[in-house]
Structures are given as C-alpha cells and as structure tokens.
C-alpha cells in the first residue's frame, strides 16, 4: 500500500525544499510540476539527523492501513540533477559526483529514521537516471550509501520519467547493467507496460537473481488496460522471473491520471494478477 504521496508537489521539489543546505530563491511556480531552481552554496551538511520528515509521512500512511506499505523517495542522483550553485561545481575540486554522495548520506539518515518508525519496504526512485545512462555506476554507488545499515527490503525504481505525463527520455535498460548487479537492493522496479517487454531479456543476460517490480500499467495513457492484457504481460515476465521473485505494479506514479481512470487501472492490475495467480495454483 501507498498513500499516493499527494503531499508531494512533485518528485524533486518536495525533497529539495526540506533539504538542509539547499537554497531555493523563488518558491512561486505556475504549475506543481515545474521545478524550483535550487542551489547549494556550500557543501551540504554531512548525514546526521533526519530532517525531511519522511518518517512522519510514513507514520501517516501506517495509521491508515494495516497492510504492508511500500514507501518511496527520490534518490540522490535524480535530486542532484536539480541542484546548481557553486559548492559542487567542477572547479571546486569536489564536483557534482560529491553532491550525489552528500545527498545519499542525507537520505541514509532519512532511511534510518524510516526504518526506526517501522518501515520495512523502502524504494529509491531514480527518474532522471535514464537520461544519464553513463552515470549508472555513480548512481548505484549512491544507492548503496542510502541503504547502508538499514535492514529493510530495498527496491530501486528506474523509469523514463513521468513529468508532465510524458516520458522524458527513451531507450533501453541496458545501461543499468552490470552496474545494478552491485546495488545493495532486493528488487529492481522497471517500466514495461508503455515500453514493451523487450528489455526483460536483460534480466536473463545479466543473471539478475533478485526480485523484479514489473510495471504492467501504462501511467501515461488514459486507456485502461484489461485484466487479460495485464495477465498476458505477467505471463511474459514469468518467462524470465519465477513468481516468487515477481512483484506486480504500475510503471510509475498515477498522479497524472484522472482518479477514476487510475482506480480502474489499479482494479485491472489486481484482477490480472489474480488471473495468473490462479493459474499458478
């Protein structure tokens, strides 16, 4: 379960607006999905106490349900792509890669607080990574900083962007491998409904031995999938991943869809999964 994250204006600003050491000069914007211009004028504080309030967000969700909860937050690489300023410019000797690592340390503090609050399943979202495929190794290094010392079930979500309800990039997931093999995660969560299932082969080629979060719902289209279509997609995934390592989910967040469409899509997802589950006995 998730609470839908409606408190977040978008996948970046909610975090940067609370991030210690990040300056946002102008906080007015025309559209919730416009991004702030954020800057770091000095190196970010190093780890320490959680300050983004994510544990409180989790506790809100926890209060609404006794079902298992997956709690997501944007990863350090994607956040770094929206932070300018002089502190991590190339000329300083630190560089943008150090910004990614600094953000990872801050998020690690959040992860520890989340786990302390009871969060058992945490997901790092990296919606910008597909735009910088050559940076996959750095992103994985940062993921490992975030997850360090937090004994939760960890997922890493990499999609092709969902800003303004359209993909920000196109391509294939080749760039994730072999870097993702070194990520200290339990699940990799990818979009397949919109892109097609061609990249499932990568899991076999690279002998991915952990779970797959398999996107079966296209969140950029208002056309509602049928349970049969969802079931067909799942069967395709089962050719590459055994059922005990397959988690069914939408491609990404549903925020750009009308509520009725989003609900019907989720119904189709659940119904399609039930069809395959029944077939598997």
């Amino acid at each position, binding site marked *: 379960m998730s609470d839908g994250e409606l408190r977040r204006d978008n996948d970046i600003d909610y975090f940067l607006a609370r991030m210690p050491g990040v300056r946002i000069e102008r906080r007015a914007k025309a*559209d919730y999905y416009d991004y702030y211009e954020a800057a770091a004028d000095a190196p970010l504080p190093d780890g320490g106490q959680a300050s983004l309030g994510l544990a409180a967000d989790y506790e809100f969700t926890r209060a609404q349900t006794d079902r298992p909860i997956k709690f997501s937050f944007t990863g350090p690489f994607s956040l770094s792509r929206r932070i300018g300023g002089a502190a991590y410019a190339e000329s300083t000797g630190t560089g943008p890669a150090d910004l990614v690592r600094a953000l990872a340390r801050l998020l690690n503090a959040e992860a520890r607080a989340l786990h302390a609050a009871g969060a058992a399943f945490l997901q790092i979202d990296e919606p910008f990574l597909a*735009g910088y495929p050559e940076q996959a190794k750095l992103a994985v290094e940062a993921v490992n900083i975030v997850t360090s010392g937090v004994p939760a079930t960890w997922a890493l979500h990499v999609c092709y962007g969902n800003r303004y309800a359209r993909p*920000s990039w196109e391509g294939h997931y080749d760039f994730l491998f072999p870097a993702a093999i070194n990520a200290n995660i339990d699940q990799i969560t990818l979009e397949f409904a919109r892109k097609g299932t061609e990249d499932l082969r990568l899991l076999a080629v690279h002998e991915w031995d952990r779970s797959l979060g398999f996107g079966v719902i296209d969140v950029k289209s208002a056309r509602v999938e049928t349970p049969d279509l969802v079931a067909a997609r799942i069967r395709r995934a089962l050719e590459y991943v055994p059922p005990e390592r397959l988690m069914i989910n939408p491609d990404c967040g549903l925020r750009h869809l009308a509520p009725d469409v989003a609900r019907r899509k989720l119904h189709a997802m659940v119904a399609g999964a039930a069809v395959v589950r029944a077939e598997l006995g």
Partner: protein
Amino acid sequence: MRPVRRLRETPGARDAFGPLVDAVAASGADLARLRVVCDWIQYRHNFRETAVTRPVLPAADGGPEEARELAVDLRRWARADPAAVAADVAAALAGGDDGDGRVWLEDWVHGSASRVWRFNSLYWQHLADWEKATGKEYERALPGGESDGRNAEAARDLIWDLFKVWDELEARRALPPELYVLELGVGNGGQARAFLDTFTELDRRHGRDYYRRLHYLMGDYSAHVLDRAREEVAHHGSRVSGLVLEATRLPDSLAFLAGKAFCVYISNVYDNLPADEVAVIRGRAYLAQVRSYLPAADAAAIAARFGIGAAEVAPLAERLLRIGPELLSESAPDKFGDTGAAVRFWQDAWSALRQAERYVPLEGLDGYRLAPGVTGEVLRPLLGATGDVRMHVSNGALASFAGTLPLLHPFGRLVCHDLFTTDLEQYRTGFYGPGKYDGSTVNWVNGPLLALLASRRGFDVAFTPFKQRPGSHVKTLTAQVRDLCCCPRRSSGRIRSPNGSSASKPSTTSAGSAPPT
C-alpha cells in the same frame, strides 16, 4: 489608439480625428459610455466596414447594451474627405442592425464558429475549382507569391541537428528503428522536397544510412494540395506518406505517432485556423461574438448577377458551404449553369462578406472551452497582465499545437513558421487580423498563449525571426521538452564519473536545469 506608428507616419490619418470627434459629438450618443477604437486594418480585403459599432452587453444571453464601442479603420480614412468620415460615423452609430437591409448569414456566434471559417474550409477543399476560376495557383495569392517552406539552407540546419540527436541516441541504443518527420500544411510540396533532397545528400555524407529509416509524413487538409505535393516528392517513393487530416484534430488521425516524431514542421497553417477573440474592457473579460452578413447593396448585386431573388442569396450561400460549388451547380442548374458559375457566386459572396461584432461577458474562465482539454483558465495570466486589451484566442492553432506536442519524441522538436504575435503589447498597438487572402481567412496567432500552454505541458517555446525571409512578419516558433540535458543541442554538461574519467564541463549554475539552447 492602436496604429501608433501609422498615426505618426500618415498625416491623413491624423486629419480624420477632427471630423470623427465632431461626428461623435453630433450623434447624440451617450459619450460617457462610448469607447472609440482606432485600427489600421492592413488587409485590403477584410470583414469590416470603415466604421462599426460593437455593443458591450451585460449578460451572455443578450439584453440592453451597457456600453458601446465605435471601431474605425484609419487606413480607409487616411484619404477620405471629412464628409465621408462624418457619414461613416453617423451610419455606424445610427444602425448596424436589420434596419439597413443587410442579409445575415448566421446568428451571433463566437469567432471560431463563424461562417467565415466554413468559407475558409471550402476554399481548401475546393481549391482546384477556385484556382480554375481565378487562373492562378493559391501560392501566388500569398505575400511574396510563394509559401515560406522551400528553403534548402533551413532544411540543412534542421537535418544536421537531427543527425546529432540521432547519433547520440544510436550510441546508447535508444534510437528507434523508424525515424518520423511530420510536416503539416504541405503547400505544393516544396518544403518536403527541399527537406528530402537535402536529407539524401547529407545522409550520404554522414554515412549512417538514416534515410532508409526515415518516414516523412505529409499532412494537409486539402486533398488537392496533397496530390500536388505527392507529385513533387514522388522520387522519394515509400519514404513519404500523405495524409488528409484536419490540423485541429491530430489525435484522431495521428495517434500512432505519439512520442515518435523527431521533427514536426508546420508552415503557415496556424494563421488559417478558426479563432475567437477576447477583450478586457474596463477590467472585465468579454468574448467577441460575430455575425456574418452581406451588405444590402452587395446582396442585391449578387442576386441580380445570378438572376435570383434577394431572399435566396443567404440560403444558397449556406448550401454552397454544405455541398461545394460543383454539387451546387448540379442541384441548381437554373441558377448556376456550371461549376464555374457557382464559384463566381462563391467569390462574390466571399468578397462582400462582412462581420458585425458585439461583446458578451466571459463568465468563468473555467467554463470557456478553448480547445479539447484546454479551458479558459490558461488565459488568466494573459488577461490579468495587460489592462484593457483585445486579443486572439487562436482556438484552432491551440488545438493543433496541443495535439502536436504529444507526438514529439522526448528529443523531438516542433518548428513552426507563421504570423505570431510574440508580446501581448502588440495587441495594444496594432491590428492582427482577421483578413482575407484570396479565398481564405488569415489571422495572426497569439504566440504568448501558445507559449503558456506549452509551459503547462512541460515544453519551452522560443520565437525567432524567420531567417529565410528577413524583414517578413513571419516568426519561427520552436518548441521542445523542458529541461532535457542529455541531448547534444540541450547539453548542460555531464557529471564527472567517480573515477574522474568522463566528461564535458558541467554547468556551474545548475547541473540539470539549464534552459534548452
């Protein structure tokens, strides 16, 4: 006073003011509730009398006017004698309704729903008949005598940019097998030919064989125009496809292209699509409603020419709009002996056509539907920013633009040459249509409105002068996805890899937020 520059340059225009004020003062009109708007209507063929009045209504369903606007065309007054000015003003203030014998062609409607646009559609659908009657191709009716899209140099720049993007995507296995380029409004195929011939040449030099993967889609409303364009690019065979489509309803025709077009090229289409107009008068928003008519004298002349009763003119014009000139002549051979006669009737009616106007309050922007999925809310920043103003809503262009953006690949680009206003201030200092070009309607397009819509949908828009025709009014609109950073044209630098091995110099201001260049 909109024609500021003309007023300075044209003594005759200034000379008209004395007679104008005298005539207004002598009219008995309530001067406390009368606005006078002066335009310089540059289109010799247009929809306006020299002086007209526009009631400002208190409610959308009519009712007594609460104010009145007297709108005059200073261009036509610049050489007029004072008596003519006084007569025009007196006539405008006295009437403008059924009393002067005009023949109405429609009821009050928003501008985009006017018969004017059905005449425009008729022109493009039956262009061959019109051209046969006039003896000249439509391009010769355009300013300069040709369309703007036939320049190899422009094509060359565009193609090199595409190659850069494609090379980078290919390097990361992200280049799709089929490379789509879409052109809307193909004219006679000159642009398509310039693009494809240049593409072939550059692709040979580049050595990547992109031509084999290229699909050039030509879309046009006119089957006649499309056929001509097809002939022009016939030597490119299956690389080219032609589609008859309506520019305002692209999702119906081009759903298969969503997210796939690397370039959408549009030349002189938007200015030819239906548009409303909105006005802010004393701080309140109004929609301009129009009602097309034929002046009494013109209607009588048309009736006499074709041997029909005056009362038949409007119904025959309506039937013409519904079935076209060929079927009109077949269905009424006693009035129109052949298609040519029906076209002459069409041309006469079109030439005489005028529009009355009035303002009705725009109650609730959210209830005003500009285009599919676009409400009047998008106007709010524009209406609130400029004080009293009247501007185009450009509904057709908005619908087409909004329908085109989703077709773009994340690294795709929309390039559009057209008559754009680029600053709302222009609407306060000049007249930007509508006017008549041959048998079609032309209107400038509200550029700031398009830019605002694009912004809401995650695209950045830039307007630049049209390089290929310096000094023309045509501007180039370029739209592309906001904030992308990994495409060559939009690179803002790369992050250094952990081992320090990679990379171009990063931006010192924002690693990922530099605006597209």
